[in-house]
């Protein structure tokens, strides 16, 4: 008997359908991955299955959890008494999913069948199950690292012994090395408890590595499903294939990443016919009229013109020809040291880096490595305690260096039009606002966008604006701090391609800061690996991949999922 059976789930919000005609089964001990980009409806599916839909969003459909029938049409009350004991949801962000002012033990105990205090033998047993020491019971979440918090959250979500655990991006907020540990832990517990796991993720690598079956979701519909080993190696749906190709490879630097054009439609923009047709290179007129349904046996696909199995060729990998590094240093950082408090470990510990004029350099590290502090020192947002930053030429202020941040939505002023934002940046470089159209053109946006405000743009478009704004004063160095981490895979590929084009065209230097080795691989030739505030290794990317010297670098490469 399946642990979870879902028939014809439909989720509807005020803007229109969010999830349409979704069927799903998960057997005890099985891991099913639901893969999709933002706006695909995967998180809404998780919320619908746990009766936690936000106000104004309703679900219909029939669900069976073990031997209990649930009519989702009855609203959130249908799940009362089943949440926790039958189905439980583990959320993405361990920093917000636990109450900050309650001890961890209490939070685990609250969901235990008998309730009880936070330091009983049962709580300690649950902590031991997730490999945490007993002292954690008495600690508050803020006293723990992200990985430990997510273990506490896992123990809490398992407290009432559910048949089905939904993990909604359970490791996305964690560093790669921690991610691997938590996923291993989850797999072990799943096996011990013979629990069904529905793993919701945007990370194809995680899905490929961890799932028995994969479902690919796009704009509220299932596009394709099949065994975990096959879906991405021989995709049937053009979307699946495009998604896979958009993922930057670690082994090789491509001249251009094959990106899917456009972006995921919002709920009110969903077209008739096949929802993917507007972005599909194979689509013809018929695709825009009739909606395909998910059909097939073990491999199922919802497409009028599916790829034949095996038809999908590997993307034509045009290896990039690297040019040697120039000698004229643009900026030299020596002995840079920074502490944020007398008791805290150094954020930067004797850091040396150089960037040549026109060179693209990567800084790779996990959270707490000091990579963002380094960027903030370079841009002048932070003062180092000691050490020097020497700029080669006389440029100062806005024309020396500019920065692009991770989250474009919060980096752009929502009250300012794009034109006003760009004009302000141009003024900082002593330039005139008449260059706004040229800037928009440079980052591949229509000139008409000048009059819009940021919230009328998609995430990828906002990041293009942020890049245009950084380029406006014509800086000698562009610093990008995790510029694609908050973007969907298909949009990420577009932005990475854009960055390569810009480097070619403008000849400026780039400092690319990221935790993602494959991403940085596609943009830079040389990297510095940072760990606990120190540069532990540096070198040309090819050599680093083939022969990493430092233990930490090796660990970093080994943790990249699905490769």
């Amino acid at each position, binding site marked *: 008997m399946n642990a979870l059976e879902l028939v014809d789930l439909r989720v509807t919000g005020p803007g229109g359908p969010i999830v349409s005609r979704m069927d799903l089964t998960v057997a005890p001990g099985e891991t099913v991955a639901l893969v999709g980009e933002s706006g695909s409806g995967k998180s809404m599916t998780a919320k619908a299955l746990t009766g936690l839909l936000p106000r104004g969003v309703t679900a219909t459909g029939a669900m069976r959890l073990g031997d209990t029938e649930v009519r989702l049409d009855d609203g959130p009350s249908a799940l009362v008494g089943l949440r926790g004991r039958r189905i439980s949801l583990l959320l993405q962000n361990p920093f917000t*999913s*636990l109450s900050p*002012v309650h001890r961890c033990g209490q939070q685990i105990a609250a969901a235990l069948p008998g309730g009880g205090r936070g330091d009983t033998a049962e709580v300690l047993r649950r902590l031991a199950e997730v490999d945490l020491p007993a002292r954690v019971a008495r600690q*508050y979440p803020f006293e723990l690292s992200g990985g430990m918090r997510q273990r506490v959250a896992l123990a809490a979500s398992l407290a*009432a012994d559910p048949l089905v655990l939904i993990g909604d991006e359970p490791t996305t907020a964690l560093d790669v090395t921690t991610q691997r540990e938590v996923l291993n832990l989850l797999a072990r517990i799943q096996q011990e408890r013979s629990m069904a796991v529905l793993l919701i993720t945007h990370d194809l690598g995680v899905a490929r590595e961890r799932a028995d079956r994969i479902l690919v979701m796009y704009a509220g519909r299932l596009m394709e499903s099949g065994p975990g080993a096959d879906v991405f190696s021989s995709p049937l749906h053009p979307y699946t294939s495009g998604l896979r190709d958009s993922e930057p490879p670690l082994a090789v630097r491509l001249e251009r990443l094959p990106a899917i054009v456009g972006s995921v439609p919002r709920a009110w923009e969903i077209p008739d016919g096949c929802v993917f047709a507007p972005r599909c290179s194979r689509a013809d007129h018929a695709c825009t009229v009739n909606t395909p349904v998910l059909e097939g046996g073990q491999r199922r696909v919802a497409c009028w013109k599916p790829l034949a199995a095996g038809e999908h060729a590997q993307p034509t990998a045009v290896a990039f020809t690297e040019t040697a590094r120039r000698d004229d240093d643009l900026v030299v950082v020596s002995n840079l040291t920074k502490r944020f408090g007398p008791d805290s470990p150094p954020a930067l510990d004797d850091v040396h880096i150089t960037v040549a004029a026109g060179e693209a350099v990567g800084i790779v590290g996990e959270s707490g490595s000091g990579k963002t502090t380094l960027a903030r020192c370079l841009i002048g947002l932070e003062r180092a305690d000691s050490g020097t930053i020497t700029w080669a030429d006389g440029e100062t202020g806005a024309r020396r260096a500019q920065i692009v941040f991770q989250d474009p939505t919060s980096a752009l002023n929502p009250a300012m039009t794009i034109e006003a934002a760009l004009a302000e940046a141009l003024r900082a470089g002593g330039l005139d606002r008449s260059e706004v159209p040229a800037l928009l053109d440079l980052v591949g946006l229509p000139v008409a966008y000048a009059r819009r405000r940021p919230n009328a743009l998609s995430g990828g478009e906002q990041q293009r604006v942020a890049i245009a704004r950084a380029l406006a004063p014509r800086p000698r160095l562009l610093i990008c701090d995790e510029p694609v981490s908050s973007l969907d895979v298909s949009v990420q590929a577009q932005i990475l391609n854009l960055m390569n084009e810009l480097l070619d065209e403008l000849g400026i230097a780039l400092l690319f800061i990221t935790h993602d080795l494959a991403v940085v691989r596609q943009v830079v030739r040389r990297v510095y690996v940072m760990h606990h505030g120190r540069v532990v290794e540096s070198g040309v990317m090819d050599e680093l991949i083939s022969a990493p010297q430092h233990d930490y670098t090796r660990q970093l490469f080994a943790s990249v999922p699905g490769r």
Partner: protein
Amino acid sequence: MARFIAVRLAATLLLLLALSFIVFGLLHLTPGDPARNLLGPRNPSPEALAAIREKYRLDEPFLRQYFLWLNDVLHFRFGTSIRSDTPVTTLLADRVVLTLQLALMSFVLTVAVGVPLGIAAAWRAGSLFDRTVSVSSVIGVGAPSYAVGLVLLYVFGVWLEIFPVYGSGDGGLDTWWHLVLPAITLAFGIGALAFKVTRTAVASELQQDYVAFAYSRGLTHSQVRALVLRNALIPVATSLGLVFGFLFGGTILVEVTFALSGIGGLLASSVTFKDIPVVQAITLITAAVIALTALAVDVLYYAVDPRVRQRGLR
């Protein structure tokens, strides 16, 4: 914890010291000869002027005057009222108690009504109940207290004859009884504020991930409510603490409306009369109450938020 309180206490004392210096300076900042000001609008004889100079040590150097005055103040000697020629301490004793009683009563009313309404409204955000109370609270914040006071006086004092309309009563329970309408008047605006603060705090906690996560692992409504209220307590308790200080310093309009002999009314008439020793005393006492409330709020903040306990207050 002890270290934290010690540091905050020291800061509070320093603040009060600086304030006392300014308050003392009042006498000398007032236009005209301090001795004449202290004698009031009488035509002083040279002997009287000499006597007042002697009494207030006006011929001493300024700083020495200040320290001597400060020493008196620390022993609760605030000098003699110009207007009534009685020691300020005697004049103030009953009035401070009355104003404290008034502030305390309206504070209790504020918390007892505003906070539960705020919690209930946030829990049913968007409902008819929420909208009704939210709109009413705007009226509460906007209505001037003397107008509210007059309406209450008319309805409950004159028309229904439930509450007394005038004065502070004969002490004990009678005084509390006399303070009911004034306290309600004061609590009207502040209670609306408390409602808004509570509603906002609880509503924003309800949006947090930990609430969804709590429900998703099977916690009951009452368990989730306990989680949310414990978190919302932090912003609510700290802002309400400051409200008390505000209440103590803001009784003047209500005291005048209800003819209560508290410090608010006395301050108003003393300012008009340039009764400087009384003004000095009331200003210092009010400042001390507000500073001590702020101290209490910090300690409370420290006690209820484990994050602050660990990294210290910023």
